[in-house]
């Protein structure tokens, strides 16, 4: 059961049950949909980027499993206040770290970024990595203003 406890840590369950920044965002400048065709999970990520290229607000809506919702909730917590370039670097770092291609990569962002380590449990569950990276792919798409939905495929 240890691996399971690793996957469903308290922090993950907390964010899954009470997602932060949940709902549409007024005045959003960037948004993108993330779809996981495997399970049908769908979420929409909203960003409000100011003149200085700083993300001054972020939110998400949609439905998904505990892992994808918690990951989106942690993402919004982390990127608010971040500049766009750092957010893109974080996307790279998180996806590389979670897909196991660079398990040691540190994610910049201080204490809030430390919380992302709670997602590390998915590395033992190959079929669930996509759940954890879904919101991050949506972040990447939103910043790059891609018009097609981001998928985990």
């Amino acid at each position, binding site marked *: 059961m240890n*691996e*399971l406890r690793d996957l469903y840590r308290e922090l993950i369950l907390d964010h899954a049950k009470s997602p932060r920044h949940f709902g549409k965002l007024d005045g959003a400048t960037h948004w993108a949909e993330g779809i996981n065709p*495997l399970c*049908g999970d769908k979420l929409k990520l909203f960003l409000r980027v100011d003149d200085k290229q700083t993300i001054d607000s972020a939110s998400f809506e949609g439905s998904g*499993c*505990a892992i994808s919702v918690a990951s989106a909730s942690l993402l919004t917590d982390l990127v608010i206040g971040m500049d766009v370039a750092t957010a893109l670097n974080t996307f790279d770092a998180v996806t590389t770290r979670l897909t196991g291609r660079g398990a040691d990569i540190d994610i910049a962002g201080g204490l809030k970024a430390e919380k992302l380590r709670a997602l590390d449990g998915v590395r033992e*569950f190959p079929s669930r990595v996509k759940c954890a990276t879904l919101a991050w792919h949506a972040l990447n798409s939103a910043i790059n203003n891609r018009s097609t939905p981001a998928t985990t495929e």
Partner: protein
Amino acid sequence: MILAPQRNASAVSVADCRSDFPALHQDVNEHSIVYLDSAASAQQPISVIETVANYQRHDHSNVHRGVHTLSHRATDAYEGARDKLRLFINASSRSEVILTSGTTESINLVAQSFCRPRVGDGDKILITHLEHHSNIVPWQLVCEQTGAELVVVPMDDRGELDLDSFDSLLADNVRFLAVGHVSNALGTINPVKDMIARAHAHDVPVLVDGAQGVPHMQIDVQDLDCDFYAFSGHKMFGPTGTGVLFGRESLLEEMPPYQGGGDMILEVSFSDTVYNELPYKFEAGTPNIAGVIGLGAAVDYLQSVGLPAIAQHEQQLLKYLTGELAKIEGLRLIGTAANKASVQSFNVDDIHPHDLGTILDHQGVAIRTGHHCAMPVMEYFKVSGTARASLALYNNRDDIDQLVEAIGKARKIFA
């Protein structure tokens, strides 16, 4: 030819057949495996595995071509499997048994070769709300290509089709009906024989998607009076990449080939090609020879156990499964039709099916989670997906007890 050991007719009792399936004798995540995902793909008995291996080891060659011994052996075994499949579904002739890669190809063949040339603007193709995507999308393609309209028979909240609506829909320019025999997501057994009779009264030809029908009940295409019946090998304990399209011979004769290539021709020149006779007209290219021979062994296996005995066993287990699941607090059963095959969808509390699937897998319990390639069904029940336990001849009460215990653990984690 070296044959795998065959069991005598009715030599296998359902209670003993679990031992015939090697995949069910292993530990997964340090628990004895509990396989409750046969509706996605059923495990194969040793007789199927050995038949395929023996063919590969001793008899492999291409079919319908060579004059040499191996080619004869391969052809005999391949065509022998077709004969077994003909008897299995009681088709009146082997010309009516087209070997395909599976239900999906069978349905696409009918959509493109039979339906597409026959429909146009103002015509309607009728399907039902219960269909798997593979019995929706091929018809949508035909509609896009021809201007025909796709119309859907509604269902109720138990997952039963509304037959009154069916009758009124049928009367309105319907040119074709495609209906699933058994819903893969909900387990509903549709009254296809009755539906076919009603459709024929309006001169509407009918395809039955039997992917989920064949493992659970004796199919008799003549008794059903269907025009087409499609099914897959891997749902009935055979290899993947195999399937059958039964088609009424008079209709198959009228239809153009679906794919061009070798084996489907009699004579080719650059000005003209003469197509081969049925069933080969629809079998272009080298087929999945080993898989089809394995499918023949799966037919032997099913008949040695006996479909009536299998159905009885599964119905008893389904009753036990449904009863035990219903006792779990916070569990919602989805799909509660009166007449069902051994498939049960459910959701537990607010636990996402994907999370439930992971936690169950960690306890050795394999179920299917998600939308089951039936998104319209999920939409009807206002869920993004469900957990689904599906039972086959090799399951028993212990499997269900393990499932219930594992669900209890999931509820604790998410409490």
